[in-house]
């Protein structure tokens, strides 16, 4: 039998399809298993690699055993979700001491982030990185998400998720670039000045509803009224009327009032 004839065998297609399905199923199960497990079943190598990265990049402020120093908080028990949020959004490592860590280009590759998260998670139990199914919003209620958003989030992040100023230069960042995973991780861990909303007080389904409201209604906001002027409220409307509005009418008045000889 030549290889061509094997490929041409009637059953070959079926066998390949079955094999592919099995592989996908097993692979998917493996992936979801590892993500859902709390604490995550990270390999010892990952923990070791994470420890190495931690000592190089984080220990200066967080302490050699992540116990915290004057310059940075302790990380024992903050969980993998916290590490994933802070490092994938580029907030950590901090480029310079400031009232708040700004979002910037991530400094670590996804593998390095996983290793760091594994190391920090190994120090003490904390919120795990949410799995893809945790982030599914297909069953979530959009209107309920809006209600929860206005009750819990809008007071700092503004009604349109554009962010807002807090005291002494602190701020709630805009939600326009946040991914569903970042949103859920932020709610679970309460980074920077944000309070945390553990699943005991805000169940996962409600978090999903909020995520749905942000992704479907705020990040892709329809603008039935036209230009939204940044959704900052009446201040930008006032600036508009005093510049473009009154400006246009003054020009018209000068035009009409001009002497015609």
């Amino acid at each position, binding site marked *: 039998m030549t290889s061509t004839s094997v490929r041409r065998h009637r059953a070959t297609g079926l066998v390949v399809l079955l094999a592919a399905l099995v592989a996908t199923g097993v692979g998917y199960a493996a992936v979801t298993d590892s993500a859902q497990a709390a604490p995550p079943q990270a390999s010892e190598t990952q923990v070791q690699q994470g420890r190495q990265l931690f000592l190089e990049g984080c220990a200066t402020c967080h302490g050699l055993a992540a116990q915290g120093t004057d310059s940075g908080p302790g990380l024992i028990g903050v969980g993998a979700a916290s590490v994933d949020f802070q490092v994938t959004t580029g907030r950590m490592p901090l480029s310079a001491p400031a009232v708040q860590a700004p979002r910037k280009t991530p400094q670590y590759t996804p593998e390095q982030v996983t290793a760091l998260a594994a190391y920090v998670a190994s120090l003490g139990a904390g919120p795990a990185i949410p799995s893809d199914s945790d982030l599914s919003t297909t069953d979530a209620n959009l*209107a309920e998400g809006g209600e929860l958003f206005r009750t819990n989030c*809008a007071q700092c992040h*503004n009604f349109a998720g554009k962010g807002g*100023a807090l005291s002494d230069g602190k701020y709630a960042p805009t939600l326009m670039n946040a991914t569903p995973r970042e949103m859920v991780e932020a709610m679970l861990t309460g980074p920077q000045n944000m309070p945390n909303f553990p699943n005991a007080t805000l169940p996962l389904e409600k978090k999903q509803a909020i995520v749905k409201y942000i992704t479907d209604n705020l990040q892709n906001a329809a603008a039935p009224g036209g230009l939204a002027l940044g959704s900052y409220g009446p*201040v930008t409307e*006032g600036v508009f009327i005093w510049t473009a*509005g009154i400006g246009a009418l003054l020009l*018209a008045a000068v035009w009409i*009032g001009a002497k015609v000889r």
Partner: protein
Amino acid sequence: MSLIVKEAGKAISRADERAPISSLAKANLRKIFPDHWSFMLGEIALYSFIILLLTGVYLTIWFKPSMIEVPYHGSYAPLDGIPMSEAYASALNISFDVRGGLLIRQIHHWAALFFMAAMIVHMFRIFFTGAFRKPRELNWVIGGSMIMIGLLEGFAGYSLPDDLLSGVGVRIVAGIIESIPVVGTYLMFFIFGGQFPGSDFIPRLYTFHVLLVPGILLALVGLHLVLIFYHKHTQYPGPGRTNTNVVGYPLFPVYTAKAGGFFFVVFGVTVLIASIVTINPIWAYGPYVPDQVTAGSQPDWYIGFLDGMLRAIPPGWETVIWGHTISWNIFVPGLVMPGVLFTLLLGYPFIEAWVTGDTREHHLLDRPRNAPTRTALGVMAITFYGILVLNGANDIIAQMTSIPFNYITWFTRVGIVVFPPLAFVATRRFCLGLQRRDRDLLLHGRESGQVLRLPHGEFIEIHTPISDTEKAVILSKVDVPVIEAPPATDENGVVTPGLKGRRRRAKWSRFYFGDNVAKPSAAEIEAAAHHAHEEHDHEVEELTEGGKDIPARLTD
């Protein structure tokens, strides 16, 4: 054609037999108005008001002023099933399910912003040109009252939809009312029909917004216009314009065309803005729930100065008397200061009249530079107001510039005391400088940039005399005499009656007019002209003479 004229004539006669239409039209249609673009600012406000009335009627057809809670099941999905007041539900209905509703809502709201902004720009023109002086003090008071009432009307209007943003504003106003010592809480309960928010406020506000206040505004607008007709319009100084004439064009056809056209421009610009720029996206704010709030909650711009004042006052300024707290930190910025500001605003014509002791009528406008203290006071007031408006938006500015809003608040607390006086001094010096320049222009003409070297080596610059129009404008300046303080006693040693008041007035008079640069007298102008003439002749003489004598001079 002749038939039409005949029939029209008959109709007019029939009308005239019953009311004096023809004679009224004859007397008023040919009334002369002076021409200047700045005389059209009030028209913007008037036309915005008409737009507000028209669009407002459309909105009342659909709006339900009720605080009864209903679940929403309209076409805006993100609020589906959410409980809300009928007022908010009907405002959503206007925005999404009524044909043209959102456009009309946006026209109405943008026109409201135009109305307030145009009234204020118009007021600046009136103030800086001294058009509020006798006999127009009453019209100034009417205009100022309209700004104050317009502010309340605007607040009522944007609060009616009962959305999350405006609900926060209503809560602040409820707090300000509560801060009134002794009666505050009772008054708040009286207005809201019980505890905040209750269920009476929106229906009450609705009556206030669509019936009471527009009625008052309409009456005031009518009175304002009648008084303009009665007083005749003021005019800017210029050749042939005096305090006893009006130089311009007749109402019909020139101003009917110009004003009619301008109405369509204002309407067009408002509709254009309303079609392309969102205002007050109530659907995005959500319904008002007392335990919710959004970051960057702001009032419409004309309330901003009040918010800025509230935000600037340091916390903790309170007195506790017999277990009752008086919150000065809310009462003073929320009610006392706006009260003082509006009293000063409305009273200004009378204050200035007292200082000048002037009882003449003024129909010729002042150039702002010729009333430097008034102009400086105006700029000072604008600076004061502007700082408050900025502080009202301190959180938005903080967000956009990354400057902590605590710094902006402190900047306001210090700046509100420091910057207005600086603005006053700078503006006054600037005006006095312009007066000196005017005097110089009148006496010596304009520097032409042509420099001549005379044969004997002297350099002179040729000055060209200014035009007659410019001369007339500069000469329109009225030198207001500074009132001198009387001696303490007369020659018989009798104490001058009312000494203290007269001294105070003399002091204010010197403050207002003491530094004014005197307009050159006729003799001075004559002398200057003579001098220039002589010099010019002299130059020409020397030049021609020089031309002949060059070799001789060179050999010297």
